[in-house]
């Protein structure tokens, strides 16, 4: 699916051990395709920011290579970095500069000639135009976050990193951010966002990667994950334990659980060939008496928590 033509970011065998011995990343391999919205999901301290920082040139990798738009981030850093915009997690802004000059500064820093019309467009799209002559220190936290986004977009990047974009952000800005991301998607910009809000990943991402303790343990299309979410499980508590599943029930793909005291039926609620009612009828026909039934539906959060727990 991800050929060389469409790969925007290619990370191979990337690891990072900080001075002092903390291993933040263990052999990460990841390809992100052009125009994709990729969510990197993981608990605090999982290595999300380290990964982003290496790609953006803020942290030196211990081993491995990264290319952005086919350009190596170390040997061809200029070409690679020109493509990248970064919105950092922390609200690190200049204090005394005005919004307009700070955003123009960023554009120059990335090697682009001044373009006040474009800066105006960016500021307007982030509802910052009215504040353009204000000193950044006088702005609210949410406004500062918008300034950071404007700075990251000032040089028309092809890849945008949003590191925890909606941490501590009000509903309005969160909505704006989602709208912005879909606008960028239309322009073909690749967006990588880190978050620990699953809802956010669901809302925005095409693909989701789960990272924990420095390892990417799952990368899947959101659609596939959603399909998994669509799966339900019916657990039937039997009155008496059974040693094997009767042949008449073979089609259901049942699993024995609790030492034969329970049967677990996994099914897709929308597309089930064998329904719950059918199963219960067949159970009775097979002479299996049951005392209780319950159904569960796994959420992305469950999957995530399970994955992260397994790793620990």
């Amino acid at each position, binding site marked *: 699916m991800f050929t060389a033509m469409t790969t925007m970011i290619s990370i191979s065998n990337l690891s990072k051990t900080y001075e002092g011995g903390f291993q933040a990343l263990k052999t990460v391999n990841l390809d992100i395709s052009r125009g994709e919205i990729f969510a990197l999901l993981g608990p605090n301290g999982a290595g999300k920011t380290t990964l982003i920082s290496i790609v953006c040139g803020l942290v030196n990798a211990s081993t491995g290579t990264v290319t952005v738009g086919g350009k190596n981030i170390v040997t061809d850093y*200029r070409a690679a970095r020109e493509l990248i915009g970064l919105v*950092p997690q922390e609200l690190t802004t200049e204090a005394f500069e005005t919004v307009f000059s700070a955003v*123009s*500064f960023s554009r*120059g*820093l990335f090697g682009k000639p001044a373009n006040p019309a474009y800066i105006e467009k960016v500021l307007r799209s982030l509802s910052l135009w009215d504040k353009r002559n204000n000193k950044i220190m006088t702005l609210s936290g949410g406004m500062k976050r918008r300034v950071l986004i404007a700075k990251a977009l000032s040089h028309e990047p092809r890849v945008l990193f949003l590191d925890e974009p909606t941490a501590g952000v009000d509903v309005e800005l969160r909505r704006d951010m989602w709208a912005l991301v879909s606008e960028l998607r239309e322009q073909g910009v690749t967006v990588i966002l880190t978050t620990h809000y699953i809802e956010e990943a669901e809302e925005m991402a095409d693909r989701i990667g789960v990272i924990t303790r420095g390892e990417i343990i799952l990368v899947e299309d959101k659609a596939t994950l959603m399909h998994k979410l669509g799966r339900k499980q019916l657990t039937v508590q039997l009155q008496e334990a059974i040693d094997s599943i009767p042949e008449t029930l073979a089609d259901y793909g049942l699993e024995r659980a609790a030492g034969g005291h329970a049967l677990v039926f996994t099914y897709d609620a929308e597309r089930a060939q064998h329904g719950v009612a059918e199963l219960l009828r067949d159970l009775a026909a097979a002479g299996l008496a049951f005392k209780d039934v319950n159904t569960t539906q796994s959420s992305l959060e469950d999957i995530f928590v399970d994955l992260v727990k397994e790793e620990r």
Partner: protein
Amino acid sequence: MNLHAINAIYRFEMARARRTLTQSIISPVISTSLYFVVFGAAIGSRIPQVDGVSYGSFIVPGLIMLALLTQSIANASFGIYFPRFTGTIYEVLSAPVSYLEIVIAYVGAAATKSIVLGLIILATAALFVPLTIKHPLWMLMFLVLTAVTFSLLGFIIGIWADGFEKLQLVPMLIVTPLTFLGGSFYSISMLPPFWQTVTLFNPVVYLVSGFRWSFYGIADVSPALSLAMTLFFLIACIVTVAWIFRTGYRLKP
């Protein structure tokens, strides 16, 4: 060369100087004027000529050097330390900018500020005492070389410092004493022989002496040696900065 980036950083730094005009220009001018009043007019009137130059005129090159050294260090160290302190350095480090360009922009801005300041102090001095500049081109060369060298030193301090205290440490504990003891206010020939020898280990002696020579043609050490020492410090600073960037020292984990 990412000229847009150099331009952006340079302008940013110069804008910072304009915002803090009182602190960057007016206060050094006032303190230098005070030196003229105290050393030049009040005490200087009781001091005979030094090497055929009135004392008030004699101290002008030393005073300019004093301001040049301290302000170059202060400007450059703060210019790079403050973004590190606030975290905004991330943007420069993630930009398609080479280390050379970063140094040119930050050090260039700091040096520009102190050169402008040096020239303002020179103009101020001309109001108090008679001035002659025998070798104007050499004067400018010493001015520029010293400003660049000590801006580089300031840049190094700004990267090395991990707190505001350290930022003040080197200028306070090393540079100011060396400048005062480096013949800014006297000719080292006025010292007893033992201290003359000790003084020759003070690098500032060579800077002040060469600079004073460009004004009055009098020097404690030969101008060629002054120039050689200035270039030596410049190269030492360049080598250190190159090492900092090659290793990512205090900039990139």
